[in-house]
């Protein structure tokens, strides 16, 4: 038997004799492997779950490309990164005689789908089947819901046409154009514009229009004329909206596309391919443009900048990507999200390694005496430093070998179990989004584990590295143990200094032996206390750093999530109906109906406006101006063009100045809000309160200029940006149109700035985001603004809703209000669940990631608490003789308990000081890195997590002390001490 084998054999015996310590070390390594598995497998599983949720909602396609001919289709199909292509043919409209809503939806809007598209576009057949040939048709369920009696087996005579619109010139306009003026145009709600004199095809899914004095609607035959049979009824596809002129109807079409034919294609890409599919498709489209067309696209929209710096004009809306799906499949154009995920993953791996490092180091540190004894003996018979080092590696790796398969299996179960437990929450989020916002239908998404063999290799690799790193220092330390160490036994306190210690006379004079013992024990016996201090510090630092990191990632994610400017808070929640009309007369008549109704069961008014006013940039602080300039410089590294300067930095029009969003609240609420924030508003004329934060982000600006680059996501959060003192006035800017001189005039409306509100002050009203400056005004100021704002065609200066409940299922009030239409012909009454529409997939993902992070923090906490238990137990064992001496001197139970309590207070205080210093250093480092990468952001403090960590640290130490020092343990400990010696 060689020496190494002897060392291994002795180490094995030692491990068996010290079962408890071995089991705790094994448990720590096991939890580490579980955590590694959770990080690698959990991340992929969660991302896959969200991806499938997006698929269930928006379909599994990756890109849609509009208006492409046969040649382009072939070129796109030939791309390496393109996986499969499907064809979607807009076949046109046909009269639908069986429409139940002929005033608004008199047509069928027919599309031809090749086979795969029925699946990719999530066509959900409610009844019947999908078409199998070109004589069959599938009709949207919306037609039946709106009163049509169409059913499977019915036949429809189709005679398709395309809808065109011709806008008439205004009187005398042609002469003005002849003299050089630009023609006017008609802009519809959707943003679609047709210039006077032009005839253009209406976009897909456009609402019903009929000829009037401003324009003429022309139906041009599209050529498809036949009788088809209804073979199925489908749920309304996600792209079908209530306002469109035709119910969606789908027919089967073939894949062949003629050279001169224009179709839309839908395609999936190879997600493993490194090619930028969007750029490749954009380049193909661009290569088929004439120079004139290219210039037109370039001037009207942004250029896509490839990673090689090529600028491809793209902004004609012909390529649509399923952005969320690609993002969650890690193929999004939003590289920051991916890099954030990778950064988070790397961060958590470092944390896990740190946690296991502290655990393993502690295990070896607190059992150093015992090990020194047997290794010293081995050393005396010729064991070399390397062989002693191997005793440590043997111990940890012999535990890692069974921990790896067990940990991976348990990790998979934890991920699966965790996902199953959290599924109701996930499903709530997903179904809320899917049901209310996009498709109006619910979806079932299964949670499947995604186990990639590469990830398993990574888990094994990182676990080995973590364990090796953890064992490195103890191994080096133990390799230096000499024969003399085996002779020394039971040295509890090792004091290197020769000088004595100052007598703790104050405790002695005051007759406080418990405090004397505690103070002496903690300050003079660092050997046995540093394990505990290290454990609490590790627990606190790792938990808080994780909490800070998760909070920081969440803050970035949240700010990146393009959330709505305003997410209504508790004050606007809990109502079943919302009623809102822009027309004043109708609004007040409806409100009057609601407020005087016997059926009313609670209400509130929500009144907000976006970008209605501006504030002169000169009224903002230099910090705001400089940050805006810095942000713009990121888009224009070669220098900010004059046009941008005059539009943003030195505005030559009202609209170039920073915009203002506004929430109007009642005078009483305003007074309460001001009071809560400690702001005095009495005597102020037309007071306004301001939200103290403004976010300037790269998501808020898009530039299509030559030379404009798309910078990495950056977010600057600025506080108190108004350069106006409390109690002073500033102008709200708006415009008036002087028709006579055809001139736009600036209108200044002075208001008084009362003070700033924080996010906390505004919590019940909601959360507020974006680059616009948020103001909160009482009704009095609102009326003042309304009266001083020129009527430029808008009936109001914002959006007003009355949110209410009724006490009757069959409410006459609801029936009456349903008859009132808003400007766009939709009902002015809607479900108040619209408020939840503000939640989007990114927010859902954020919630899910937060939950996963909490689970992760709990697992990290388990490692650290195991470590703490181990340290408390180690100290208890090391103090066996010390406690016996105290017993022999007649210490009572109460005195012993007090001594332990004072020791714990001192240990906690010491640990918290170290924790605060180390956490602060880590947090500052993390924030500096994140701020450098993502901009100057204000990160929120996880206050509850700090409180919780402190409570758990205190509770953990006290509990473990109680357990380890209990009388019951006394006998066991004597036994343990006897078996500690090999």
């Amino acid at each position, binding site marked *: 038997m060689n020496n190494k084998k002897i060392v291994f054999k002795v180490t094995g015996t030692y491990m068996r004799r010290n079962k408890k310590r071995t089991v705790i070390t094994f448990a720590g390594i096991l939890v580490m492997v579980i955590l590694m598995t959770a990080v690698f497998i959990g991340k992929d599983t969660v991302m896959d779950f969200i991806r499938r949720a997006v698929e269930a909602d928006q379909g599994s396609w990756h890109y849609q490309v509009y208006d492409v001919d046969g040649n382009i289709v072939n070129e796109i199909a030939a791309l390496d990164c393109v996986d499969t292509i499907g064809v979607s043919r807009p076949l046109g409209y046909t009269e639908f005689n069986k429409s139940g809503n002929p005033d608004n939806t008199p047509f069928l809007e027919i599309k031809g789908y090749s086979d795969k598209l029925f699946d990719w576009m999530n066509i959900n057949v409610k009844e019947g089947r999908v078409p199998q040939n070109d004589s069959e048709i599938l009709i949207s369920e919306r037609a039946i819901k709106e009163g049509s009696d169409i059913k499977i087996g019915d036949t429809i005579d189709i005679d398709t046409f395309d809808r065109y619109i011709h806008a008439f010139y205004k009187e005398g306009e042609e002469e003005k154009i002849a003299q050089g003026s630009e023609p006017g145009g008609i802009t519809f709600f959707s943003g679609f514009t047709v210039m006077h004199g032009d005839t253009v095809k209406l976009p897909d899914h456009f609402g019903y229009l009929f000829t009037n004095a401003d324009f003429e609607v022309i139906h041009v035959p599209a050529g498809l004329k036949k009788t088809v049979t209804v073979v199925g009824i489908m749920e309304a596809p996600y792209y079908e909206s209530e306002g469109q002129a035709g119910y969606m109807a789908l027919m089967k079409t073939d894949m062949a596309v003629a050279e001169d034919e224009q179709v839309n294609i839908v395609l999936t890409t190879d997600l493993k391919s490194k090619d930028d599919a969007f750029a490749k498709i954009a380049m193909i489209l661009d290569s088929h443009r004439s120079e004139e067309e290219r210039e037109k696209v370039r001037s009207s929209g942004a250029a896509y900048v490839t990673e090689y710096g090529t600028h491809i004009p793209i902004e004609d809306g012909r390529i649509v990507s399923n952005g969320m799906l690609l993002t969650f499949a890690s193929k999004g154009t939003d590289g920051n999200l991916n890099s954030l995920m990778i950064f988070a993953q790397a961060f958590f791996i470092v944390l896990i390694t740190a946690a296991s490092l502290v655990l393993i180091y502690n295990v070896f540190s607190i059992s150093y005496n015992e090990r020194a004894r047997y290794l010293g003996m081995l050393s005396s018979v010729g064991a070399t430093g390397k062989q002693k080092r191997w005793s440590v590696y043997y111990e940890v790796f012999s535990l890692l070998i069974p921990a790896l398969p067990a940990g991976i299996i348990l990790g998979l179960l934890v991920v699966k179990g965790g996902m199953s437990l959290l599924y109701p929450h996930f499903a709530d989020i997903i179904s809320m989004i899917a049901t209310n916002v996009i498709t109006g239908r619910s979806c079932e998404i299964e949670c499947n584990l995604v186990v990639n063999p590469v990830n398993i290799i990574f888990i094994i690799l990182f676990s080995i590295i973590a364990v090796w790193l953890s064992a490195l220092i103890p191994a080096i330390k133990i390799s230096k143990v000499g024969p003399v160490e085996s002779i020394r036994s039971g*040295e*509890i*306190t*090792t*004091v290197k200094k*020769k*000088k*004595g*210690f*100052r*007598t*703790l*006379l104050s405790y*002695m*004079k*005051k*007759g*406080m*032996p418990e405090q*004397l*013992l505690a103070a*002496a*024990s903690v300050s*003079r*016996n660092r050997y046995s206390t540093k394990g505990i201090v290290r454990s609490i510090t590790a627990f606190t630092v790792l938990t808080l750093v994780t909490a800070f990191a998760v909070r920081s990632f969440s803050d970035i994610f949240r700010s990146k999530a393009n959330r709505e400017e305003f997410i209504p808070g508790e004050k606007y929640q809990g109502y079943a109906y919302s009623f809102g009309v822009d027309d004043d007369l109708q609004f007040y008549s409806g409100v009057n109906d609601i407020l005087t109704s016997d059926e009313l069961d609670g209400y509130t008014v929500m009144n907000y406006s976006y970008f209605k006013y501006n504030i002169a940039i000169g009224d903002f602080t230099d910090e705001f101006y400089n940050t805006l300039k810095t942000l713009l410089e990121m888009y224009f590294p070669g220098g900010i063009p004059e046009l941008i300067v005059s539009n943003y930095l030195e505005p030559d029009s009202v609209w170039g100045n920073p915009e203002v969003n506004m929430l109007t609240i009642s005078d009483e609420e305003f007074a309460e809000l001001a009071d809560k924030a400690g702001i005095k508003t009495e005597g102020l004329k037309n007071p306004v309160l301001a939200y103290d934060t403004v976010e300037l982000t790269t998501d808020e600006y898009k530039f299509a200029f030559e030379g404009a680059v798309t910078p990495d996501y950056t977010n600057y959060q600025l506080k108190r940006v108004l350069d106006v003192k409390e109690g002073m006035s500033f102008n709200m800017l708006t415009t008036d149109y002087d028709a006579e001189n055809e001139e736009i005039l600036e209108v200044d409306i002075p208001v008084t700035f009362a003070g700033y509100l924080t996010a906390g002050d505004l919590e019940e009203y909601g959360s507020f985001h974006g680059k616009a400056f948020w103001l909160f005004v009482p009704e009095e100021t609102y009326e003042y603004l309304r009266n001083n704002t020129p009527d430029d065609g808008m009936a109001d200066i914002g959006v007003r809703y009355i949110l209410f409940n009724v006490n009757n299922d069959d409410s006459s009030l609801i029936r009456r209000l349903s008859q009132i239409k808003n400007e766009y012909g939709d009902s002015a009454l809607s479900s108040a669940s619209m408020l939840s529409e503000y939640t989007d997939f990114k927010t859902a993902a954020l919630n899910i990631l937060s939950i996963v992070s909490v689970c992760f923090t709990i697992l990290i906490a388990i490692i650290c608490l195991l470590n703490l238990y181990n340290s408390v137990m180690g100290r208890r064992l090391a103090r066996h*003789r*010390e406690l*016996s*001496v*105290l*017993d*022999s*001197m*007649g*210490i*009572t*139970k*109460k*005195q012993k308990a007090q001594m332990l309590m004072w020791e714990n207070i001192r240990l906690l205080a010491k640990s918290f000081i170290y924790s605060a210093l180390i956490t602060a250093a880590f947090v500052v480092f993390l924030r500096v890195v994140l701020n450098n990468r993502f901009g100057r952001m204000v990160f929120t403090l996880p206050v509850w997590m700090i409180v919780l960590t402190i409570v758990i640290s205190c509770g953990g130490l006290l509990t473990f002390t109680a357990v380890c020092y209990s009388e019951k343990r006394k006998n066991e400990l004597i036994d343990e001490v006897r078996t500690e010696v090999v």
Partner: protein
Amino acid sequence: MEILKCENISKIYGAGETEVRALDKVSFTVEKGEFVSIIGPSGSGKSTLLHILGGVDKPTEGKVFIDGTDIHSLSEDKLAIFRRRQIGLVYQFYNLMPVLNIDENIALPHLLDGRPLDKERLDSVVEHLGLTDRRGNLPSQLSGGQQQRVSIGRALYSHPAILLADEPTGNLDRKTGEEIIELLKESNKKNEQTLILITHDEGLAMQADRVISIEDGRIIKNEKVRNIV
């Protein structure tokens, strides 16, 4: 005046075949201020007897009366209080608190009893022990002899009624051992403390007023020293 009385003390470890009778019906009495040596070979039950007398261990059978109180009938806390007021233990391996310096170790039993520090007395004890220049040192920074002095210093400072010393010189060289015995005897005489000394050094034992010999857990001799002489 009788201060300590043992009545039929037995101590049995284990059961059945592995049963070991460490003490077998041991009875004796000790007068106040008396110096008694207990001698016997290794494993004879001397230390077990001392622990039972000091209330650190419990007898399987029999009773120990100190000043008329059956100490093993007391509750755990009352026994602890009794121990710190009446008993001073001096061990072969000193058993000092490793985290306390000399001053603190000496004053600890006194402080545990809720009595305030008497600084002057502490100073005089430390000076008497010749440890003035080492009073800030922890036990691990002291030699064996110095540690045993501290151990005796505890008894000198809080002067319990009975001083139980278990091989106090067993770990020391002869000269230091003699010094320690002188200190114990001084404490015995000066403070009228009862001293019970365990040793297997016959010469040392002969310095006592009385010698009790133990073998296999039984008292085989219990005689005044002058009778032996």
